[in-house]
């Protein structure tokens, strides 16, 4: 598959608005390094190490090998024919990240970061997780490399994602329940930051999305960009042209930026990031900072947040644990402001509906996170002529969510 590597140019300029971040991690006014002093040296060191490694072909060759033989890449680009016929518009095409080892895109990132941890000589990794997919991907790679692994997970999420908790434990990771704050993903991130500040000498923190302090947003984007590079090449092979639209769900934004980034310069390709609309944007009960939030600072970066008028972070609501996060990666904040990507929302109800029709029409049970992208992507396709192509990122499979959906149906498994 494509070996075109992440851009080495840094710094968004007027000439190229897509070349960010700059040396301090800024995408326009977003991003940066907003952490306590204790962690600054650690993120600066990580930035240096990553910048050096990213310049080495051997580093990418090792990642490519793992992606091929361990993860099973490339993931197919699949034409969903019945879905396309049903909606009657543009061709609906799915990028099958659900077929990756561990069942989601998250492993693309953990493979890369764990390699950095090994190179930096850190015997222990920590991770935060919401849906449990990033926790599983971290536990997986830790088992394979023989690293100690502790995963922070909100007590609330431990309840709704018990299967993933057990998977992590099977692979030797310790899952630490976070009881502070709203007991979900944001609080798991706080707790991981506290752990990192305490154990900074022997610990590598694998952040699971394209957020956090610089260099994480850049690094996670680079590792996830394999999605977009493959999709680009596969689209050329299958259709002899690029897609007309890309659609991905946005929690912290890693699967979305991974799909979008290699297409940013292709101005004819429109892009849609789908946030969790929860009960509906108008109810205030959602997790859609780009659609309905405002800029602020949380977890190391300046970005769009769900923050109240007093500057407190608000509780978020989504049927999907992986989208239940009040912030979003800073590059998305930038892409929103310059108008390159459209950010929209799908409600819980729409996502659940998509979860069901994708299962029935294509025999693919999507993750509830990905179901948000399916919901919006199908709506979009229905409005477009038949000769258009819409690529939807199917970021993960839905095995982890069957208890949640069964529960909504009043069935106990």
């Amino acid at each position, binding site marked *: 598959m494509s070996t075109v590597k992440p851009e080495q140019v840094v710094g968004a300029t007027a000439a190229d608005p897509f070349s960010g971040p700059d040396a301090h991690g800024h995408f326009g006014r977003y991003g940066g390094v907003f952490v*306590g002093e*204790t962690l*600054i040296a650690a993120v600066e060191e990580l930035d240096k190490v990553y910048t050096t490694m990213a310049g080495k072909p051997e580093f990418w060759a090792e990642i490519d090998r793992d992606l091929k033989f361990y993860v099973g890449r490339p993931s197919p680009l699949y034409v969903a024919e019945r879905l396309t016929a049903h909606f009657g518009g543009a061709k609906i095409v799915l990028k099958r990240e659900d077929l990756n080892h561990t069942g989601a895109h998250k492993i693309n990132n953990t493979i890369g970061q764990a390699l950095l941890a090994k190179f930096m000589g850190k015997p222990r990794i920590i991770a935060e997780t919401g849906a449990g997919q990033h926790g599983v991907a971290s536990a997986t790679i830790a088992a394979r490399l023989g690293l100690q692994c502790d995963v922070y997970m909100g007590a609330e999420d431990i309840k709704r994602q018990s299967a993933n908790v057990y998977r992590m434990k099977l692979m030797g990771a310790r899952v630490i329940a976070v009881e502070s*704050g709203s007991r979900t993903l944001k609080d798991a991130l706080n707790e991981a930051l*506290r752990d990192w*500040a*305490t154990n900074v000498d022997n610990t590598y923190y694998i952040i699971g999305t394209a957020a956090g302090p610089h260099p994480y947003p850049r690094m996670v984007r680079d590792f996830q960009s394999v999605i977009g590079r493959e999709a680009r090449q596969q689209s050329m092979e299958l259709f002899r042209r690029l897609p007309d639209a890309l659609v991905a769900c946005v929690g912290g934004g890693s699967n979305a930026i991974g799909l979008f980034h290699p297409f940013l310069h292709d101005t004819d390709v429109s892009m849609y990031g789908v946030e969790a609309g929860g009960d509906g944007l108008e109810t205030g009960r959602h997790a859609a900072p780009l659609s309905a939030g405002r800029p*602020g*600072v949380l977890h190391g970066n300046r970005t769009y947040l769900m923050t109240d008028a007093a500057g407190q972070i608000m509780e978020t609501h989504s049927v999907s644990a992986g989208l239940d996060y009040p912030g979003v990666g800073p590059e998305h904040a930038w892409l929103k402001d310059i108008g390159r990507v459209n950010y929209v929302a799908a409600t819980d109800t729409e996502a659940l509906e998509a979860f069901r029709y994708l299962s029935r029409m294509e025999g693919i049970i999507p993750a509830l996170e990905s179901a948000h992208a399916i919901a919006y992507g199908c709506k979009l396709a229905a409005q477009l002529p038949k000769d258009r192509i819409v690529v939807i990122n199917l970021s993960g499979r839905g095995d982890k969510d069957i208890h949640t959906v069964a529960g909504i149906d009043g069935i106990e498994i």
Partner: protein
Amino acid sequence: MSRISQTMAALRAAKRKVLIPYLVAGDPDKGTTLALMHALVAAGADIIELGIPFSDPSSDGTVIQLGAERALREGTTLHDVMDIVRQFRAHDATTPIVLMGYLNPIEIMGYEAFASAAQAVGADGVLIVDMPAYECAELFDAVRPRGLDTVFLVAPTTTQSRLASICASSTGYLYYVSLKGVTGAAITDKGDIKSKIEHLRTMTDLPVVVGFGIKDAASAVDMASISDGVIVGSALVDAISRLHRGGVATPDDLAATVAVIASIRSAIENIK
């Protein structure tokens, strides 16, 4: 000269150590915070760090997290924090107040609005835990012309190249973080702290005050002996957690709550 610098100069001239308690504004409620601040001064506090409660205090340990949660349950906002300072200032014209917290509430209020409110109510300095100096240009433009000091943290992990820029950006005092970790953890490496502070002395004339992990008279004496003084947070916030919200704290309750500060005051009084 700022109120903080005057206080520091007077202490230095008297060869006394500075004692800076930290408490969360609005914990357990606004009225009690105000009463506690006066009680702290009576117990020997020289400067007060008043915490702006935040929903996601990622540099704090459990004790201060819970303090922030109590304050937020009371609905404490940054405007309320300013109001507490204004009321305190009405009865105490000399004790400096440093507003300490995380960036988001200040960012949402706006730097200009924050700085003008802080000046108007009689606050003296700001310490933003998650905002490194090189992100502060706009904030400095707002707070410096209003005479507010800008305090920064130095950590055991701070590199030499960052030290110079932190010293250049700091006014009032330097806050030396005694350990790798969060507030309320235990100090493990006294020797390292001593040599780091000695090194800092070669770079700045600012007072160096040690915080994080000082929980009693013994640890305060250890740290004050090798620095200009100590900051005490978790030990005080832990005592505050035993006060009841809403009820009027009696003078005895207040004295019992600030007893840890009084005992540290007398313990560090004999260090030369």
